[in-house]
């Protein structure tokens, strides 16, 4: 224990500046708009303002038209929808619709889809966190063209200044005198100096604008982890994104990020994934509680020694989700037993595992199977990842239960550490944000309504698309009785 304390004082604190879900910006949602089952993909823009791409596949026949409109999830901006844009049906597939929408400001947005079809009109709102993630560089062709034009304009204006001084006041037909020519040369030199000064000043201004813009690029809340005894403390700090430091910002910035406005997402203020590095062979899904001073505290369960990456998911009161990232070194820890919604799995490191295994044998002999199609997995292609939990004899458990109100949870983690996504049966959106949009079709949650007796299936599906090509680990949690089972699968996504 002393060793643990010692090490806790010298922990590695690292806040990785990545976006919500970490490296996985695209939004996948599978849900119902009234009678229509939709698979929605929203690809947010890199810059804000920027254009989000939208794809909708109707899994129910008879959809004639889908319109999309952007709105804030709540507060100012949620009352007056702009004119809706009609999504276009694909020529070869009348139930696949595509379109685009401008995202004008950073904040917690929704894209409201209105579906018209054989079964009438219905709507579905897709929560979309709107953030600037980067700025684009100028491509070579455009850069070359603008450089040539720029040089021409600079040379042109200098020549005009010189000619103006040399000849403009001369009577028609009169040849410039030596004094006129000297005056022209002087004006040319002065003009050149002024033009160079303007270009230097313009360059400084450009850099200053680029620097200002970089301040608007999303930075998640910082999180530092420390251990005292067997308690893990997660302390947050603001790195300076979407704050109101001036009166003008306070007046014009509708979304100002806070650190005291978190709302529970399926029953917990924070969902913490601790994943051992570099093998991604041990995973814990835990739920720290927030103290009055804002720090999140967790009584650690017994944990295996190692270097862990911590991914902490929280949701702000306006539905804006964030994933905070930190790292920590832990010795073998003897703590409390896992309880409640805690989940754990240990398996072989990904470096020693293949990518073809679709059946994971759980510690109690149950099996979790990835019902994988024969089609290759492609990056940026949204599909349903389907899993089944069976007893050791292959039959369906009779005591299937909901895990935090849903059929299951999944985490997709890229082995190089650039991607972490915490997925629900509805998709990548936070359930809290989905509820704030007023959707009636959040299927997973509906199953947990008091008084409703429903047979809980032993299968679960997660709509998701790998953001980039490469190797991933997938952690899937399902529950039967009081046992939370965590299956681990490996996958390789190819580039598109």
């Amino acid at each position, binding site marked *: 224990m002393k060793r643990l304390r010692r090490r806790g004082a010298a922990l590695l604190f690292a806040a990785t500046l990545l976006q919500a879900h970490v490296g996985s910006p695209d939004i996948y949602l599978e849900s119902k708009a009234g009678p229509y089952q939709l698979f929605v993909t929203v690809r947010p823009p890199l810059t804000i303002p920027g254009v989000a791409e939208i794809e909708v596949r109707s899994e129910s026949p008879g959809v004639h038209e889908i319109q999309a409109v952007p709105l804030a999830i709540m507060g100012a901006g949620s009352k007056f929808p*702009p004119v809706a844009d009609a999504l276009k049906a694909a020529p070869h597939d009348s139930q696949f619709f595509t379109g685009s929408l401008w995202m004008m400001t950073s904040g917690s947005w929704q894209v409201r889809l209105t579906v018209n079809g054989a079964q009438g009109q219905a709507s579905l709102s897709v929560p979309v966190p709107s953030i600037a993630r980067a700025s*684009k560089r100028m491509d070579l062709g455009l850069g070359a063209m603008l450089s040539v034009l720029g040089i021409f304009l600079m040379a042109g204006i200098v020549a005009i200044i010189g000619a103006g001084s040399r000849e403009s006041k001369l009577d028609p037909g009169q040849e410039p005198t030596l004094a006129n020519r000297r005056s022209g040369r002087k004006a040319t030199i002065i003009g050149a100096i002024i033009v160079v000064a303007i270009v230097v000043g313009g360059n400084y201004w450009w850099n200053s604008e680029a620097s200002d813009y970089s301040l608007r690029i999303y930075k998640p809340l910082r999180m530092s982890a420390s251990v005292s005894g067997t308690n893990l403390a997660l302390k947050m700090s603001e790195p300076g994104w979407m704050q109101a430091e001036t009166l003008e910002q306070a007046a014009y910035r509708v979304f100002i990020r806070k650190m005291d406005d978190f709302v529970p997402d399926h029953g917990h203020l924070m969902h913490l994934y601790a994943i051992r590095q570099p093998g991604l062979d041990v995973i814990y899904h835990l739920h720290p509680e927030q103290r009055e001073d804002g720090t999140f505290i967790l009584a650690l369960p017994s944990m295996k020694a190692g270097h862990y990456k911590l991914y902490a998911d929280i949701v702000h009161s306006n539905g804006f989700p964030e994933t905070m990232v930190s790292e920590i070194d832990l010795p073998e820890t003897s703590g409390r037993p896992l309880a409640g919604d805690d989940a754990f799995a240990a398996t072989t490191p990904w470096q020693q595992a293949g990518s073809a295994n679709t059946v994971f044998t759980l510690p109690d002999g149950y099996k979790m199977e990835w019902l994988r199609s024969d089609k290759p997995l492609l990056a940026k292609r949204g599909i349903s990842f389907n899993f089944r939990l069976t007893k050791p004899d292959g039959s369906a458990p009779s005591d299937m239960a909901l895990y935090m109100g849903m059929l299951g949870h999944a985490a997709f983690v890229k082995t190089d550490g650039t991607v972490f996504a915490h997925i629900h049966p509805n998709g990548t959106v936070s359930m809290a944000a989905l509820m704030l949009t007023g959707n009636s079709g959040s299927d997973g949650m509906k199953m947990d309504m008091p008084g409703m007796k429903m047979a809980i299936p032993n299968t679960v599906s997660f709509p998701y698309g790998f953001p980039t090509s490469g190797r991933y680990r997938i952690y899937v949690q399902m529950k039967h009785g009081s046992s939370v089972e965590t299956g681990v699968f490996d996958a390789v996504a190819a580039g598109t």
Partner: protein
Amino acid sequence: MASIPAQHSDLASVPQARVEVSEKTATVPWYIWCAVFATTSATVGAYWDISWHETIGRDTFWTPAHLAIQLCGVLAGIAFGYLILHTTFAKNSPLAAASVHIFGFRAPLGAFIASWGGIAMLTSAPFDNWWHDAYGLDVKIVSPPHILLIIGVYSVVIGTLVLLAGHMNRTQSESHTTENRLILYINGIMLTQVMILLMESTQRVLLHSVRAYLVSAALPPIVLALSSRLTRYRFAATWVAAFYTLFRIGLILVLPLFPAEPKLGPVYQQVTHFIPEEFPLLYIVPAFALDLLWQRTKGWGAWKVSAVSGVVWVSVLLAVEWPFASFLMTPAARNWFFGTGYLYYALPPNSFAVRNVFYPSSDTPWQFGIAMLGCMLVGMLAVRWGITRGEWLGKIKR
């Protein structure tokens, strides 16, 4: 423009001599009408485009407002490109003797300036498109590609003025009524264009702040002094300011007649028709004061006139704009004429304009007073520069 008052014939510092040249009549050449049309198109297009962004939001490049702006660049490029080529290569070109030489080409100086402006405008289009892709900034008027566009428009306007001045200075005619009217018109266009550049600093909520008076002292007096020196009209500054005032009031009266809705979100203010820009600043009052001053100071040196002009411009503007801005914050101004109820769709509910309050200033009365003295100094330099440019234009012959 309506009728222009009689010429004031004896403004001291304007050169009286007009050079006799090969152009036998004072008929305004086709290329000047072309330039006048181009600059008008750019001005209407620019304000229409701003309204488009405030009403509908960012749209395709091919909106009529964008096309009206770029028409200016295209027209300037084609018309003055043709003029340059024709003057350079055609035998017996009437303008050959009245040309300057640049890169082996020859043409009147104004043609080179205006065509340069056209190329600058066309260059700004891909630059601006990339800028939005890279930084996404849209609501700002003052950005590097927008400034290149604005400089391009100004160059077309300045080129037109140079062409007009050169034409006047070369022709024999005693009267240049049409040309002088066109100069006032072009300067009205120039002031209206300058106010686009100053728009972000002269919003209603800033009219009790130093910033609005500083920028008002820095640029508009240049245009007014230049107009007065070049045309010799007694009320040249007043007419130029009147053009700006009527143009902006016209937008308030006309644009809301056309229905439109935001195509982008979030929408914080419900909008059902095109949103015009705010009520014009009351420049017409200090411009009138400057005209009266300049009529009575004909024998003064340029620096002395400029110093007094700076004081008059800032004092009169402050005296009329400050209380008028207070009025604009009241419910009485939220009507079809003053138009303070027309709000940009993305204006947050907490913003100063929506709450009808001024941007707070931390200046003490002393600090504000010293800042106004600084504005007067800036105004003096602006008037002096305007006089210099007006005198230079009065001597242009090519």
